[in-house]
């Protein structure tokens, strides 16, 4: 596949992530922060996000698996995940966290377990999408091309 084709494919793929709500404007901010002095910024932040999130999801799973669930602790973890997902623009994860927190406040164990599943699902979806997108970018760069800037009418 030649570079122009790869670039078009990347643009279409990235646009679809925004259209489908996986990513929001905050992700654009991250892309705009990337420059020659920090050419891997987006990859680095996204990797950090993956590391943090997997730890948080594990902590959440354990916390909700206790005989007496400490909802304050659960809420603290969800709050952190909400913060980090919103900081990178992972919109659907963030939204899943918002719903999660309201059920924590109600101390509703069934609903919070469902929310955990929902958050996990959204996380793995966006992880997959971001990895695909970043792989496409790598292929373009390896072929000597440059990453096209996405123009979106927000």
């Amino acid at each position, binding site marked *: 596949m030649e570079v122009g084709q790869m670039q078009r494919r990347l643009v279409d793929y990235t646009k679809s992530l925004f259209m489908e709500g996986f990513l929001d404007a*905050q992700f654009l*901010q*991250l892309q*705009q*922060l990337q420059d020659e002095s*920090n050419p891997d*910024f987006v990859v*680095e*932040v996204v990797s*950090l*996000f993956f590391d*943090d999130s997997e730890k948080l999801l594990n902590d959440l799973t354990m916390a909700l698996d206790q005989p007496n669930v400490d909802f304050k602790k659960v809420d*603290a973890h969800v*709050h*952190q995940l*909400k*913060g*980090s997902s*919103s*900081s*990178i*623009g992972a919109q659907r994860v963030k939204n899943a966290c918002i719903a999660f927190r309201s059920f924590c406040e109600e101390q509703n164990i069934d609903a919070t377990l469902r929310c955990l599943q929902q958050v996990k699902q959204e996380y793995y979806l966006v992880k997959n999408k971001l990895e695909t997108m970043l792989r496409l970018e790598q292929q373009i760069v390896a072929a000597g091309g440059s990453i096209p800037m996405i123009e979106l009418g927000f």
Partner: protein
Amino acid sequence: MNSSNGNGSMSTASSSGAWNGRDQFPAGLRVLVVDDDQTCLMVFEKMLKTCLYQVTKCNKAEIALSVLREHKNEFDIVISDVHMPDMDGFELLKHINSEMDLPVILISADARKQVVMKGVTYGACDYLIKPVCIETLKNIWQHVVRKKARNTF
């Protein structure tokens, strides 16, 4: 300035000296940013550097406080997350307000009115909701100037 211990760490992005010259202002504004979430901390650091500020990042409030105590006149403004384990943003804010004269901005994904109210009444000069965009950070120098102006009169 670099220090670290087993439980937390902080690092400075640049080691240039004190903020010099009003011509370049607000470039060189000396910011201490505190957040226990490393993803958020990395994004803030990059944004603040892009604003040409001198950034020191820290992932624990206690470390931030000891740095501020040891290097009293080397910071212009503190940006801190609210919900952190051990010492939270409110406690850090209280300490800073009682011990030194620095503007403190609180940042959180928590937009609940009672929490924002708490921040304001505890003396935060601003309370920003995550995700924070770079345009907002470009304006934080106003808090530094405002505080200095208040102290002069």
